Structures are given as structure tokens and as C-alpha cells.
């Protein structure tokens, strides 16, 4: 019996599926993304520990060349991760659309998270990407937030920009470490929260960045062959 036109589509789809014998919804495991994410995780923690010692000194000031270069290197690495991820995106899942639908369910758990899910930038390239690429692009945004907070709260008072030029004499640095509580709050647990058991080992800004990095690591581990 010949197939009716209305049955041709599903039959063809079934044959294609069976013929291909495999479907792909997501990008495969990418060792380079996994390696870069693990290294970034390491470097962010190392930066946090260094800042606990250096906040309030010339060395810990966001205008210091080494600190500017650190964020530039991170930005470059995350951009590369996003490019690698986008290159292998099979373009089946649009993460932004999925998250918008999840917002209703998230409302019952955490209204702030639900609101965040709704407010994602629909026009951004990442909005049309799979959830891995979307997550990596957003990791770059988290690092940008950390950099802004660092720049806003960790500049050493009394040091002007000239003190960080190539020829700036080191004696321009303050003789002792200045206390910058707003800067400390980025890189170390808050004493009041720690006393209540509400704080982990990291400062609140670093904690958020690390979780965004771990989300990328988690996905790569879930995709690792044999996992």
C-alpha cells in the first residue's frame, strides 16, 4: 500500500534517524575547553589568595600592570573557549528559549533566579547558542563583573594613575598595607556570615565566578567519553 502524503514525513524521518543511527543535540566533549576551564579555576583561586595578602598595596591595585594583564588573559581564554564551543554547536538547542520556559518553574524556587532567566539578552549571539556556549559567554560576563568590582573597590587611595606607569618609582607605594574592607569582602568570607555558617572558603565575588567556571567543568565531565 503506498504511503499517504501525510505519512511520508514521519516515515522519512524514521528512516533518516535509523539510517544515521545516532542523533546529536549537543556539542561533543572538548578537551581544550575542559583544560582551559580547569586552569581558569586554578588561576582565580590563586588570585584570590594573592589578593588576601596584597589588597591595599601597590601590588594588589587593579591598575598594576600584572593585574590588568591577568584579566586580559582571562578574557582572551574565555573568548577562545566560546569560539571552540560555538564551532561544535549542532544548533539544535537554543538555550535562551529553554531558560525562558524554565523561568516559570524557577519562580517557585527562587524569584530572583526566575527574573534573571527572563531578563537574558534576547538579542545577544549567545541567545541563539546551545547551553554550553551560552554558559561560557556568561562566564566571560561574570569575570567582567569581578573586574569592575575589583577596579571599584581595590584601588589604593593616594596613588594616582601615574604611579602605575612603566617609569613609576616603586617608592610611590604606601609604606604599609592599607585596609580596604570593601575590597576584602570580594576576596575573603565575611566574618559575620562565616560566624553563622553561611560562608564557604571564598569571598562572595570569587565564589560566584568559581561556580560559573565549575558549571563549564561539570558539563565537560558529563560529556567526557565513558562518563
Amino acid at each position, binding site marked *: 500500500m503506498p504511503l499517504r502524503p501525510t505519512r511520508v514525513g514521519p516515515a522519512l524521518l524514521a528512516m533518516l534517524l535509523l539510517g544515521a543511527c545516532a542523533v546529536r*543535540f549537543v556539542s561533543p566533549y572538548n578537551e581544550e575547553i575542559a583544560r582551559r576551564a580547569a586552569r581558569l579555576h586554578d588561576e582565580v583561586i590563586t588570585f584570590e589568595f594573592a589578593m588576601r595578602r596584597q589588597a591595599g598595596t601597590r601590588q594588589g591595585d587593579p591598575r598594576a600592570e600584572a593585574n590588568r594583564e591577568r584579566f586580559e588573559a582571562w578574557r582572551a581564554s574565555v573568548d577562545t573557549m566560546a569560539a571552540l564551543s560555538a564551532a561544535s554547536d549542532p544548533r539544535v538547542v537554543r538555550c535562551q528559549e529553554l531558560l525562558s520556559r524554565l523561568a516559570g518553574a524557577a519562580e517557585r524556587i527562587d524569584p530572583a533566579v526566575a527574573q534573571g532567566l527572563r531578563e537574558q539578552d534576547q538579542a545577544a549571539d549567545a541567545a541563539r547558542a546551545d547551553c554550553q556556549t551560552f554558559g561560557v559567554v556568561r562566564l566571560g560576563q561574570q569575570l567582567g563583573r569581578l573586574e569592575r568590582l575589583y577596579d571599584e573597590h581595590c584601588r589604593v587611595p593616594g596613588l594616582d594613575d601615574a604611579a602605575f606607569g612603566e617609569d613609576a618609582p616603586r617608592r610611590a607605594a604606601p609604606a604599609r598595607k592599607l585596609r580596604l574592607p570593601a575590597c576584602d569582602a570580594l576576596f575573603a568570607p565575611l566574618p559575620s556570615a562565616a560566624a553563622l555558617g553561611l560562608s564557604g572558603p571564598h569571598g562572595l565575588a570569587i565564589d560566584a565566578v568559581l561556580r560559573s567556571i565549575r558549571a563549564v567543568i561539570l558539563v565537560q565531565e558529563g560529556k567526557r567519553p565513558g562518563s
Partner: protein
Amino acid sequence: MNLDELFQSLVGAAQGAGRSLFERGRTVLVPELRHVAERILAIEVGRRAGELGEAQAKELLTMQVESAIDTVAMTTELAAVDAEKLINAALKAVKDAANAAVGFPLI
């Protein structure tokens, strides 16, 4: 083609993926959301204790919420990985059964 065997293969594949999805929710998403809830409370406690200014508390809160969204996005990606595994396992079960039934590699 043995219908029962094929059916059991498909059910086995579906159960495996279903367990995996449940496990991801239980072991990844729920602890992460709890973690975020704790950090949001920590920000509020720090603000009341005067350790954080109003503006900085808002900025840190934004970062926490954003990281929670990252975790939701990545859990969604892992759910797609699981769905892909489920469908591919089912396709393989159908392929193996069909090839076994005809006695040569048909598909």
C-alpha cells in the same frame, strides 16, 4: 524480531537516562541552589553588619544570581546529553533488532 526483547531494550535505555536526569537534579542542581540561597543570606547578613555597602551588596547579589543561572543552563545542557544518549540507545536497540531479524546489516 522479538517484540519483548526490543521493548525491554528500549525500556532499559529510557530507565537509564531517567535515573541519570534525576541524579543530576539531585546531585547538581539542588545543592547549587542551596548554595546560592546561603550566599544570598550571607550578603544580607554582611549588609546588616555593615561589612557591605548597599551598592556592593546589590552587585554581589547579581553575581550570585547569575552563577545560579549558569548552573541551570549547564544542567539543561547535561539533560540534553542524557536525552541524546537515550535516543541513540533506543535507535541502536531498534537497529540491532532489525538487523538480527533480517539476518544481515540492513540499517
